[in-house]
């Protein structure tokens, strides 16, 4: 019998880390991640885990410590948010370049200025080219499941790359939702023992980490790094099917919701997908053929599969919770790139919503659906990029 519990997103992730009991965890407090690491610190204080915790003096040092610890030859985790991830930026590239399988929940938060502690995706999107695998999560359950699977993907012998698990700050991290936790035993057996590779602490076989590579090899090194990403899709799917056997919960590279017979579609990441699905159900009752695609694996990005899922539509609205100022927003750019090679492809709209924690309401989804219908029936011309849910000051 399943035991359902009501917990916050941060509690769920702290619980996953307790069950996994990593060798080393280095972290620095930042809202909204803080309360997750506090909970984990409680587990350490009460002896529920025997993880060595490093409570460092900055996120830059947190990631640096994780790199050292991971190179040392053990299982490593950290977590951060918004500006903390931005401060880590230099070291993110080092972590992936050194093939350190570090796992890091990113509790998504806006970037300054102006200062804002609430949810948007600018943090993780700013790190999308850093060579990290990115898994995105709609709610606490998905974040918990993704975090457990992340260790398997990161530590896979053919991958050995860091993974960030993205979850919306406050909206999920601080809101109570229903959770189905797996037993400690199940999680531990699923994640398994850490297998070191080229461990720095293997004193009998000394290795050097972090060489200088000049123009003769750097280019090839980066090509090799890109090629590893190609094998992430199959590993992610294999880990997901094992996880389904364990949990009964099925995860693909993305979630496809009522898309098969749809004419128009929404593409959106994380918690906003929940609101969208509700409104899609309502619209369906009114005869509107609308569906949704919610990416789960954002890096590497499954272009072909996404195109297969979307190319039959007449219009697609990509909702981005971050922007690339003066350009299309990050999620839109990927969807457009997916669909470009197809002869048959939908009209694409890019709508920016919810920056800095602005509420994303059912009426915003309704407006987006109505706009797509107007575009499809040619009542209005498609305006490529627009901010929605703006306050009306004047």
């Amino acid at each position, binding site marked *: 019998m399943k035991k359902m519990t009501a917990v916050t997103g941060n509690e769920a992730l702290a619980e996953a880390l307790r069950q996994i009991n990593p*060798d080393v965890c280095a972290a620095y407090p930042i809202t909204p991640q803080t309360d997750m690491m506090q909970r984990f610190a409680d587990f350490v204080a009460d002896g529920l885990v025997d993880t060595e915790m490093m409570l460092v003096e900055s996120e830059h040092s947190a990631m*640096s410590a994780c790199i*050292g*610890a991971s190179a040392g030859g053990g299982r490593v985790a950290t977590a951060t948010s918004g500006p903390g991830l931005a401060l880590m930026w230099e070291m993110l590239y080092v972590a992936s370049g050194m093939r350190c399988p570090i796992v890091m929940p990113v509790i998504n938060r806006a970037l300054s200025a102006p200062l804002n502690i609430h949810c948007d995706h600018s943090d993780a999107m700013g790190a999308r080219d850093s060579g990290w695998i990115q898994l995105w999560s709609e709610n606490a359950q998905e974040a918990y499941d993704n975090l457990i699977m992340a260790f398997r993907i990161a530590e896979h012998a053919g991958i050995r790359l860091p993974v960030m698990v993205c979850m919306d700050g406050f909206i999920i991290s601080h809101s109570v939702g229903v959770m189905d936790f797996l037993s400690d035993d199940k999680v531990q057996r699923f994640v398994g023992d850490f297998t070191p590779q080229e461990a720095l602490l293997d*004193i009998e076989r000394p290795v*050097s*980490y*972090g060489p200088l590579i000049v123009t003769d090899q750097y280019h090839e090194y980066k090509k090799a790094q890109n090629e590893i990403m190609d094998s992430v899709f199959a590993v992610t799917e294999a880990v997901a099917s094992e996880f389904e056997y364990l949990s009964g919960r099925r995860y693909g590279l993305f979630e496809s919701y009522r898309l098969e017979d749809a004419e128009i579609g929404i593409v959106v990441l994380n918690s906003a997908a929940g609101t969208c699905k509700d409104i899609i159900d309502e619209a369906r009752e009114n005869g509107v053929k609308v569906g949704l695609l919610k990416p789960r694996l954002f890096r590497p990005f499954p272009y072909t599969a996404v195109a297969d899922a979307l190319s039959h539509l007449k219009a697609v609205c990509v909702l981005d919770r971050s922007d690339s100022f003066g350009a299309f927003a990050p999620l839109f750019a990927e969807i457009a790139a997916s669909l470009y090679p197809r002869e048959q492809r939908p009209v694409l709209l890019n709508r920016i919503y919810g920056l800095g924690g602005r509420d994303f309401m059912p009426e915003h989804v309704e407006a987006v659906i109505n706009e797509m219908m107007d575009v499809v029936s040619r009542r209005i011309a498609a305006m490529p990029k627009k901010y929605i849910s703006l306050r009306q000051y004047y």
Partner: protein
Amino acid sequence: MTTSSLKLKDLVNKDIRLAPGHRMCQGCGAAIVVKMALLAIDKPVVACSPTGCLEVTTCISDYTAWKIPWIHSAFENAAVTLAGVETMYRALKKRGKISQDMTFVVFAGDGGTYDIGLQSLSGVMERGHDLLYICYDNGAYMNTGTQRSGATPLGASTTTSPAGSAVPGKLQTRKDIVKILAAHNIPYVAQACPGHHPDLMRKVQKAVSISGPKFINILSPCHRGWRSKADDAITISKLAVSSCFWPLYEIEQGVTRLTHVPKEKIPLEQFLRPQGRFSHLFRPENEWIIREAQKQIDAEWDLLNKNSCNTENG
């Protein structure tokens, strides 16, 4: 704990764990410092360097001069990178996955220590990681071409504090990094120089025998940046000590002790003269800088004597 002999006849039989063939300049102080320090340690060593001369010259893919495990991750974080390794070591030891004893040593330049790496270093010291941090101090960013750092001495001409007709080189004095580290109340802080190698090696040996965070600042002559002769590293570092520009001392459990008192304290000028970076100071209009620097060094030397347990005033 038994410590092995530091006699030359015994040292020459030891394996030097930084292999020849690295690409450091002939006569580089840093290479000498690293070799001396490694010779003084008997246990297996895991080392870390920040981005800098030592790093780019000792590990260029696919070659490494390090016969020991070694890691470089970035510039501003050598202390915490190695603290991460050391923490994993403790985690794996606790879980029975590692049994050997190991020593952890950072070799970092002054840029990575006094300036960009100070925050990470301070954090590591405060948290009490069991590692030895050695700063090879050559008083400028030598790897990028001799830019001024927080360790550059007063009056030195560097590429970003050049001696010109309006500004006579660097106008600020050096940070006192040893005092900064001592203020962390760590068990062992010291200053050494390769011109006095038995003293240097004894300090390294003592440092690694103490658990907790340790720091040694070691003068590391750089003839490219100092504009001195390539074979002058040892001579100049001895002048640095005799002039009291670079006092040799240690602070163990809060107790300061001079480990060498020059028989005759020579004028600072004698340390400055063989170095092209100070040549402009000998022009009449700039001589006030030498006087000012001498005054500061005298005051610091007096203070050090006052605070030392093994001097008449102490």
